[in-house]
């Protein structure tokens, strides 16, 4: 299943909206899983990190002591899956005392006032 090729011939713009901190719930990990599986479908993928979702990209995560997978490293590998549009909302970072340097991967910053337009440019919204 994980290797299936999509031959339906449709290409859509799919945005993954990530708004929750990692580890407290499973959603951050599952969003990433879906993006990785979805890569086989050759769609136009955007990942958006809002609110506590910005913590998913925080450097220096060490959940191993809790026997959790450290999936934060995987965000750096997304490029190999042709997932290159990673957007982080500027205000979400600032509200949490974070800066772009605190993140594991290069992202594009988006202002809060432009988030609605970014979402409205998409065909499908998957929220986690």
């Amino acid at each position: 299943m994980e290797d299936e090729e999509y031959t339906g011939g449709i290409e859509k713009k799919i945005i993954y909206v990530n708004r929750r901190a990692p580890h407290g719930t499973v959603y951050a990990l599952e969003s990433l899983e879906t993006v990785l599986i979805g890569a086989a479908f050759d769609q136009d993928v955007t990942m958006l990190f809002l609110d506590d979702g910005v913590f998913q990209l925080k450097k220096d995560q060490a959940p191993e002591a809790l026997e959790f997978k450290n999936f934060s490293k995987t965000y750096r590998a997304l490029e190999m899956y042709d997932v290159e549009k990673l957007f982080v909302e500027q205000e979400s970072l600032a509200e949490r005392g974070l800066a772009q340097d605190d993140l594991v991967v290069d992202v594009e910053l988006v202002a809060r006032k432009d988030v609605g337009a970014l979402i409205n440019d998409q065909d499908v919204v998957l929220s986690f």
Partner: protein
Amino acid sequence: MSTLNVLNKSPFEKKTMEQCLARLADGDSVLMIEDAVVAALADTAIASQLESVGAAHALYVLEPDLAARGLSSSSRLAAVKVVDYSGFVELATTHERVHSWL
């Protein structure tokens, strides 16, 4: 290219509603279901904020979820329209995409 934004949490418990409202684009609508229906009532602490959002965006509330909570006949914000499930379906068709704010 408008979005139907679906909210299901009470603004008195979670910030989800305010986080959604801060990101609405022109033409977007908001539908309150499940615990979010409490936001549709008049005279709440967030009533004036929602009324001003309602001046720029269509606001809807799901009637069966109001009724389940004993709120069907409570006075509601003038800006909020009541829909049933068939109205929810209709809204999903008249907007280009549905965004559930979880």
